[in-house]
């Protein structure tokens, strides 16, 4: 393959949403949103409450089907794919709400998300432990690296349901990382989390970006957005009203108005 074609692909956005609508019985929660998410960057999605940010994220993840419009992920039209298939292609959305598997241990919460375990099928299970133990060992190792990185090594055998809110958030993020995501959709990853953990999450997000993972995140804390995001998309009343760097957005009075008034 020539160097040129790789570069061309790398310059294409990882995700392209075109004229995406999501209506709820006449209410246009998402009203013709088109955005592009560049590869290897952190893109922020901001806007007042009720702007349709979370609905749009849910449409991207597939939990809510789009009323109309197209979503292309890495060159593939995924508009009609069910959410679990989108997750398998690398488009992963951890939850805004705590969504741990309470009666699985923290380590198991991570392991269960791995896609490449031979024992994770009825056939594999019936073949017995010898058939899948190598995969399991490899994944346990991988999960323990994450646990260490997130400072939760000591908790690996505790039930996830017994974790604190902030720890559950970390479990959620680690679980998403076990999926080897290419695009992480994060909906206010820092909300309701202790300031110390907020700082940690920030570092991890930057680490992830340097590892080549693309991130699209909804965030209310503007200084956080300023620090983390390479570019920002502003939504209000279901539409995109602007995009660019935070600095360039601050210079546009109508955007400042929409965001502050909303």
């Amino acid at each position, binding site marked *: 393959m020539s160097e040129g074609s790789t570069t061309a692909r790398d310059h294409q956005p990882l995700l392209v949403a075109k004229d995406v609508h999501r209506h709820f019985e006449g209410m246009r929660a998402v009203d013709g949103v088109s955005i592009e998410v560049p590869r290897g960057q952190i893109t922020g999605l901001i806007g007042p409450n009720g702007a349709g940010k979370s609905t749009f994220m849910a449409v991207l993840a597939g939990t809510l089907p789009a009323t109309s419009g197209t979503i292309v992920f890495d060159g593939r039209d995924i508009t009609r794919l069910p959410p679990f298939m989108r997750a398998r292609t690398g488009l992963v959305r951890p939850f805004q709400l705590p969504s741990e*598997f309470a009666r699985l241990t923290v380590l*198991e919460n991570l392991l269960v998300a791995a896609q490449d375990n031979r024992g*994770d099928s*009825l056939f594999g299970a019936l073949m017995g432990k010898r058939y899948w133990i190598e995969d399991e060992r490899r994944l346990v190792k991988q999960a323990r690296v994450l646990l260490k990185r997130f400072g939760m090594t*000591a908790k690996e055998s505790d039930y996830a349901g017994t974790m604190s809110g902030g720890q559950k958030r970390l479990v959620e993020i680690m679980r998403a990382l076990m999926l080897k995501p290419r695009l992480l959709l994060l909906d206010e990853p820092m909300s309701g989390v202790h300031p110390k953990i907020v700082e940690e999450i920030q570092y991890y997000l930057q680490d992830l970006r340097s590892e080549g993972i693309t991130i699209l995140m909804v965030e209310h804390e503007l200084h956080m957005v300023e620090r983390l995001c390479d570019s920002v998309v502003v939504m209000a009343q279901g539409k995109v009203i602007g995009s660019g760097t935070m600095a360039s957005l601050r210079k546009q009075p109508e955007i400042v108005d929409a965001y502050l008034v909303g």
Partner: protein
Amino acid sequence: MNLYYGANLLIYAGVDIIACLALNLQFGVSGIVNFSFIVFQAVGAYTAAVLSMPNDKAFGYDFQLYVGGYQLPFPIPWIGGAVAGGLLAVPVGLVVLRKLRADYQAIALLVTSVIANTVITNARPFLNGAAGLALVPPPLADQIDPNTAPYQYFYVGLTILAVVLVLFVVNRVVNSPYGRSLRAMREREIAAMAIGKNPVRLKMTAFIVGGVIAGFSGALLVGFIQFWAPSVWLYPETIILFAAIIVGGRGNNVGAILGALLVPVGFEEVTRLLNNAPLGLPAGVVPALEWVAIGLLIMGFLWFRPDGVRPEPRRVFEGGPDIE
């Protein structure tokens, strides 16, 4: 204790253990509240019966009306029973498990159980209606006389083999990465979907595997009691099995076995003995009280010991940090 009574008790225990292991896979591990479980046992029993019986025109069988009657040799009727349980799970699962919310699934399955029983009771030409099928030939009856002591030992041996086989299969499933996916789906379906699990497929698989095992348990039972009728698979039978799982410990195969021994076997035996004892109670009081007791048992456990006698084990992996 006489041999026939002992054999009877052991075989019922085996059948109940197998049924509880199947229900534990569906309910305890995967979270499917299968209130129609007994129907799957029944379809296995009916299938095994009509596969092993001669047709309903044959001498000695012409007082009954039923479809089939193929006189197939053992173990074909048993395999047929297991397959029938799995096959029935496909349409039922597709209708119930795809779109409905979990609580409505439970209701739909309960209704399925009632409908199935009513239909079989009233559609007499199909499986002889309320009177049921009698004179079902026991396995290998042409080689060993079923009315002898050796046959009792033989059947107990078969039952033990069947229990070991089923336990082997469910242990592999439950203690594998696949079992972990099933438990994750049980805990939070929507989050499981977010990490790439297909919950419909996971549920269908657990439902079908459970159906196969349930059908197998029916075949095993009908081969021994040689009779099968709607009165033995009324929907409350499923409730007894649920009680067993709750008492034994949801999600734990050992718990399911314990539950099977404590509730369907233990309770029913105690009731039967009390009923025969000269207590001076009016007829029917003891069996009625049995239902009260089972209801109290379920409530008591859910209240005071919701995880059962043997709770689901916490999976600790080798090489981790020492805890405590």
